[in-house]
């Protein structure tokens, strides 16, 4: 087999935009391995200046169509912390329920439309319709459940409109919540089916490992597998945490000439965020059903195979649905009460943090005494993964160089996908066959 490689994949995936893969090797000697990000910069941190504290979440939601609820929540938490605005327990729970809907939306899309075809060795999800029609329809059904769930709580599937500093503009009725709960119970069966199907092709998950640092939220009071509350932890901190307000000292953002998106590093040259990071820091706090799925795949704490991130997402889907069924019980037991929200602007500065489906997300804002934004800083999960993807490439390519150009390209693409790039990637799979 030739030891020459000349891989130049332009816009292979959407990672908050576009990503390129460039690899060159001659006679087995590697000359270049690059993960490049050439996305058109959009300058949100500059654009929020002068906006009222009430409008921040509406604008920054537009950073990402697929994580819009997550961005809105991170911004709203930062605004509330900066202005000292309190949120009721009911609103807090409802927001967590809203957040879960987006996690399920995003995870289902990634597992079903993007990763599954890789596992099946298929070029897209379309040939799978013939091979495993029921499985594909199960994915479509689960994705639809998640979208309708977002509609109910957030007012829309994408770009929420019920979320405001201080709470939510409105709540669903108790009957709507009961209906959602029934739907979610049915969804658990569908998730079992999806897990069985993925397990049947799990031998196609590459056995690559690279020890790295995993960063996520950690909540101790009460101990929770958290997406929303808590402080920052990593697999390199021996379980200790760092307050959200210190996030800039963790991300250590820097500009790489390979990228219009900034890169990050903490204790090492790179770190990873996302489902596998959350799992590696908090796995013992998963629901029993979710633990069962992890066991099916032999996924254990300390896993450092980046390809297993997709399996960690599958585990999280079960956790999210089981936890939401319980959360709805708590909301119904307390009874849904209407809330009148009244807030006013004042000076302050603070950070907000939540877990996006693809990893930990930080927002910070400063406001003047009228509550108008003076400045902002945002660090998205995909940026935090860029350096780690590059380091994975550097370890993986020499290991598989003998497999030839096509196999190397395919494993690199699959690796990037396992970090869960955005929607366009999933559609990349969806339509190829229609041409």
């Amino acid at each position, binding site marked *: 087999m030739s030891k020459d490689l000349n891989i130049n994949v332009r816009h292979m995936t959407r990672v908050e935009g576009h990503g390129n893969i460039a690899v060159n090797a001659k006679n087995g000697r590697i000359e270049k391995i690059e993960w490049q990000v050439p996305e058109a910069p959009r300058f949100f941190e500059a654009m929020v200046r002068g906006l009222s504290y009430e409008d921040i979440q509406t*604008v920054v939601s537009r950073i990402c169509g*697929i994580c819009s609820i997550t961005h809105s929540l991170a911004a709203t938490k930062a605004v509330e912390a900066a202005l000292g605005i309190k949120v009721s327990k009911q609103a807090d729970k409802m927001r967590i329920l809203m957040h879960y809907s987006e996690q399920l939306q995003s995870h289902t899309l990634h597992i079903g439309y993007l990763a599954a075809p890789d596992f099946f060795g298929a070029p897209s999800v379309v040939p799978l319709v013939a091979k495993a029609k029921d499985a594909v329809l199960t994915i479509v059904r689960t994705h639809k459940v998640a979208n309708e769930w977002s509609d109910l709580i957030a007012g829309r599937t994408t770009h929420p409109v019920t979320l405001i500093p201080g709470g939510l503009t409105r709540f669903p009725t108790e009957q709507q919540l009961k209906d959602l709960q029934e739907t979610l119970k049915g969804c658990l069966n569908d998730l079992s089916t999806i897990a069985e199907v993925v397990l049947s092709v799990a031998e196609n998950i590459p056995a690559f490992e690279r020890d790295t640092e995993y960063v996520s939220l950690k909540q101790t009071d009460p101990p929770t597998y958290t997406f929303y509350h808590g402080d920052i932890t990593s697999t390199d901190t021996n379980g200790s945490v760092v307050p959200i307000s210190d996030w800039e000292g963790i991300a250590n953002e820097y500009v790489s000439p390979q990228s219009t998106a900034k890169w990050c590093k903490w204790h090492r040259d790179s770190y990873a965020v996302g489902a596998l990071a959350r799992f590696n820091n908090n796995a013992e706090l998963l629901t029993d059903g979710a633990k069962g799925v992890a066991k099916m795949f032999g996924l254990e704490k300390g896993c450092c195979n980046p390809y297993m991130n997709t399996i960690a997402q599958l585990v999280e889907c079960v956790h999210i649905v089981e936890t939401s069924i319980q959360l709805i019980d708590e909301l119904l037991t307390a009874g849904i009460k209407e809330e009148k929200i009244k807030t006013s602007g004042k000076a302050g500065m603070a950070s907000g943090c939540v877990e996006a489906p693809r990893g930990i997300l930080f927002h910070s804002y400063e406001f003047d005494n009228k509550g108008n934004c003076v*400045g902002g800083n945002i660090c998205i999960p995909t940026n935090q993964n860029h350096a780690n993807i590059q380091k994975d490439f550097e370890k993986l390519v020499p290991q598989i160089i003998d497999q030839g150009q096509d196999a190397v390209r395919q494993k690199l693409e699959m690796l990037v996908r396992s970090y869960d790039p955005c929607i366009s990637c999933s559609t990349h799979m969806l339509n*190829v066959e229609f041409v």
Partner: protein
Amino acid sequence: MSKPRIAIFDFACCEGCQLQIVNLEEELLDLIGAVDVVEWREAMSEQSHEYDIAIVEGSITRPEDEDRVEIIRSRAKILIALGACATIGGVNKLKNNFDLDDVKECVYGDDAKMPHLDTAMTKAVDEVVEVDYKVHGCPIDRKEFTYIVRCLLLGKKPEIPEWPVCVECKAKGNPCLWEYGQVCLGPIIRAGCGARCPSSGFRCFGCRGYVDEPNVNAAKDVIEKYGLSIEDLKGKMILFGSTQGPTNE
């Protein structure tokens, strides 16, 4: 008759409008069966210079992107602008309120002068090339998208509402958000969204752009009745790029 060839392109945006196309779920498969998708840069590796309908998502923010959209226009019989970034510049237009050097420095600091970080004033697609149809909204409404595509497949002209959001909001029986002190842009913004935001208790912030002939005087009457200023209204208008329009007079 051969199927119309459709190509989808994107520029600066959040991809939320393409996500709405995916969110059509089973319906997407039907739609794709009725047309021939020849290029969807995110969607497939194949590329084609031969297409009948070009769907363009996102705002134009770099000189090289202007060149690209001009080429797309020259190849397409019909060009559709998809979503607020494409139809009115979207949130990307907030950038135009600042000096561009200042914007770059704010985000990239000392690295702002690196050539790959360059940017220009944000433009909606019709500020660069002629647009035949607009699918409004941030994000687009899935039903409106399929309606417009269906009309084009049947050779009919889609009818886009020429009345303000208030019409749809009142028809739903919603209490007026002005009564709650919210600066809602319903009186001057194009309907077609089913008044989605005000129905959820959140003010309209103008993502569908101005209705063609808004009753500006009536809007002023409303503003004055509630003791708010035209500046409040303009401030909310800025969110979705509508810096030029009836209230600038």
